């Protein structure tokens, strides 16, 4: 017996050590085997945290009360102990009591909850407004005011495909890391205006106490005021199709100075990246750029081998309708999307150069090389059809 217990203990201990060596708490994300809500870095998140404790304590007390009585009854009032059944079947006073008292308890719960609801919905007098757009399957951010006015970028999952496929060990921030996070200043009221380009997504960051659906064609808003610099992570919380699990949200809260510096850097970088849409590119330049654009925007559906997923996402390899056809149809498809399918309109997401390069890439990748008309598409061609 002692030996069995010892062996079990050893196994449990070694398993826990292995588990702990593998993963640690994710900074700004979930802890290992976290049991409760995130404590939060905004007043709202902390309010929610304490509301939850209040509810948990009240519910547990009632639970213990009711099931204490029931357990006593189960132990004492049983036939095999010779207990004879009593004959009461109604008691107006008792029945009124356990209707009225719960009502009073609920009023007690509703008062603090109401305060928090009203505070959460107050998105007025924000210091900074950022527009977040949900795409299948990434987030786009655009700074509408403040020092970073006009800065906009897409925020893609940064986890390598190898980790998802089990070819590499998963990292500590697996699925909750992005190539370019949203950056905000500390202690400022940040209003996030949300919409979506295709289907409904939801923007959730538990540490900030924020979750808001992003609805295509409509604007909704929410707000937060983080009082602690750091990186805070969340994920899409509304089923949005195949890669629902692969569009995380990362928010970096920086000090005022760091935020101003970040804004200036972003603006300078955007200026430097401005391209002349009339420039004529070489085929190799377009192919190199197009491969990158394809890898971040198209590969999820059309797959790296261009085969798509039969019945769901069409193949580009050997496609004679758009890819191995005159360029106009393909350019219009990429610009405007296919309504009613997962094919998004990339008009506002990608520049003329990016669209030209990715189209050129699909016309020269896989088995498509040398097959169709218009093997090279220039940014000016895209601009002409916008």
């Amino acid at each position, binding site marked *: 017996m002692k030996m069995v217990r010892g062996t079990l203990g050893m196994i449990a201990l070694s398993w826990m050590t292995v588990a702990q060596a593998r993963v640690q708490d994710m900074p700004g994300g979930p802890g290992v085997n976290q049991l409760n*809500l995130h404590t939060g870095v905004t007043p709202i998140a902390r309010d929610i945290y304490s509301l939850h404790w209040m509810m948990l304590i009240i519910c547990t007390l009632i639970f213990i009360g009711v099931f204490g009585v029931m357990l006593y009854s189960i132990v004492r009032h049983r036939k095999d102990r010779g207990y004879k059944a009593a004959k009461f079947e109604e008691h107006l006073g008792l029945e009124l009591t356990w209707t009225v008292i719960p009502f009073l308890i609920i009023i007690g719960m509703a008062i603090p909850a109401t305060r928090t609801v009203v505070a959460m919905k107050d998105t007025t007098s924000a210091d900074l407004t950022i527009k977040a757009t949900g795409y299948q399957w990434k987030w786009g951010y655009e700074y509408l005011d403040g020092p970073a006015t006009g800065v906009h970028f897409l925020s893609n999952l940064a986890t390598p495909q190898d980790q998802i496929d089990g070819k590499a060990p998963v990292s500590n921030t697996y699925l909750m890391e992005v190539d370019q996070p949203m950056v905000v200043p500390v202690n400022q009221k940040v209003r996030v205006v949300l919409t979506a380009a295709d289907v409904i997504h939801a923007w959730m960051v538990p540490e900030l106490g924020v979750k808001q659906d992003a609805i295509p064609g409509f604007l909704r808003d929410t707000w937060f005021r983080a009082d602690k610099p750091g990186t805070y992570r969340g994920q*899409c919380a509304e089923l949005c199709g195949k890669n629902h699990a692969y569009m995380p949200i990362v928010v970096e809260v920086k000090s005022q100075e760091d935020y101003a510096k970040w804004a200036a850097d972003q603006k300078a970088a955007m200026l430097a990246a401005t391209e002349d849409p009339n420039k004529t590119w070489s085929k190799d330049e377009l192919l190199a750029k197009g491969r990158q654009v394809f890898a971040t925007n198209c590969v999820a559906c059309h797959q790296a081998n261009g085969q798509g997923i039969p019945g769901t996402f069409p193949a580009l390899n050997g496609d004679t309708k758009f890819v191995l056809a005159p360029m106009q149809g393909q350019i219009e498809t990429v610009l405007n999307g296919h309504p009613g399918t997962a094919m998004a309109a990339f008009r506002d997401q990608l520049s003329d150069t990016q669209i030209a390069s990715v189209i050129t890439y699909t016309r020269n990748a896989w088995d498509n090389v040398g097959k169709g008309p218009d093997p090279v598409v220039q940014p000016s061609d895209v601009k002409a059809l916008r």
Partner: protein
Amino acid sequence: MSSVTVDHIPPHAGHDEHAHHVPRGWRRWVFATNHKDIGTMYLIFSFCMLMEGGTLALLLRTELFEPGIQFFQPELFNQFTTMHGLIMIFGAIMPAFVGFANWMIPLQIGASDMAFARMNNFSFWLLPVGAILLTASFFVPGGANASGWTMYAPLSLQMGPGMDFAIFAVHILGASSIMGAINIIVTILNMRAPGMTLMKMPLFCWSWLVTAYLLLAVMPVLAAAVTMLLTDRHFGTHFFNAAGGGDPVLYQHVFWFFGHPEVYIMILPAFGMVSQIVPTFARKRLFGYASMVYAICAIAILSFLVWAHHMFTTGMPVTAQLFFMYGTMLISIPTGVKVFNWTATMWRGSMTFETPMLFAIGFIFVFTIGGFTGLVLAVAPIDIQVQDTYYVVAHFHYVLVAGSLFALFGATYYWLPKWCGHMYDERLGKWHFWMTMISFNITFFPMHFLGLAGMPRRYADYAAQFTDFHQIATIGAFWFGLSQLLFAYIVIKAFRGHGAPAPANPWEGAEGLEWTVPSPAPYHTFVTPPQYEASH
């Protein structure tokens, strides 16, 4: 105490000789008009669907054993989650309750059969059609519907033909439910035995009467919602497309106006069952019969006023948020009354703990946990944190599995002797209860923690920090699933005649007309209505 007198009908005293003829072979089932045969078919059908939906759940849990994608790509995983939900709700839980209604309502109210026997046949035979449509949709191009059982637009507009299969299946299953509901209402209101006033009716009948009205009210709403999806998909309408003047959130409002009463459609009959079982094994009348009836009605009425608590994160105005929060919290009052009344029924009873009683107490215990998490979710700010996370998954499995399914198991053991004339194996029944109870909690309790920590639902893949709880849940799920094979074995064993022959009333404390007819119940019962003389 009450007394029940029944005018016993001699076996051959019918008014018409062929009314006592039992059809043989396949015709008995295909052309069935007998409420007992149709009830049996409903129950067998729903158990098959429980197995299908359960298999899908185990496939989900298999993929979720570890982070990363091991077995099923996300697009297939999403099909599994969607079809698990649709099959369990429309294929398993709802038809199982209708099966019980068919078998037991005529026996409990002393009616000879359901009011519309041929419509009863039709409403059953629509079910396999719907089930085949749902199952076949996996094999059409693009696979099954992968937009979740809620089928939110515009995601559902992107789906392939599998979505159209789901839409037609929902139409067909909805038509079946509406016919079933009409049948139940007409039967209960018109065919009660002389002396059985509404307020003397067994609570199972009461709960089904209210449920049937809910079904009538909301199934057409669901049909409207999915029809709008269909026309948006194929006929150029723009109900849910902002570019054409529509609104995606409109779908959610219409859907949840159906969806919230639907939740009570799946739990009210369970309340009725537990209210039959607890007094029987406590050997004491149900405490607060009248307040139980009022509580059921109150829950049903409130269920029409709280639908948008499923939509707190869509961004409603603050007044709407508060209205739906208060309304939802109010529902806990009548629900609490029911739990208090069951406890008071047990108080100073003379209890024994056969399998039906174990499932009934298990129901009250675990359902109450689900009720409390429902109250936590009603608080809008907390809901904002945990909406669409595993906390919600834990919550609705506590009320739908531990609630509806446990009550169905308990009621099966309770009425099985009446159906097949033999007692089930009590020892195996208790094993089934404890295995189910323990494995259920192993599966779903850790999901509360996952949800609080921010693990979103409908994810094929997750951060490594969530691994341990997912692994515990997967182990529990397999244990839970396999335990149900034991249930099938116990029921089949009793039906094959293994087990002590059951007397007309196998339970010492049971009351009601169903226990006045022999076990197994003869093919035709109460051809002449009995006189019912109970105090309620």
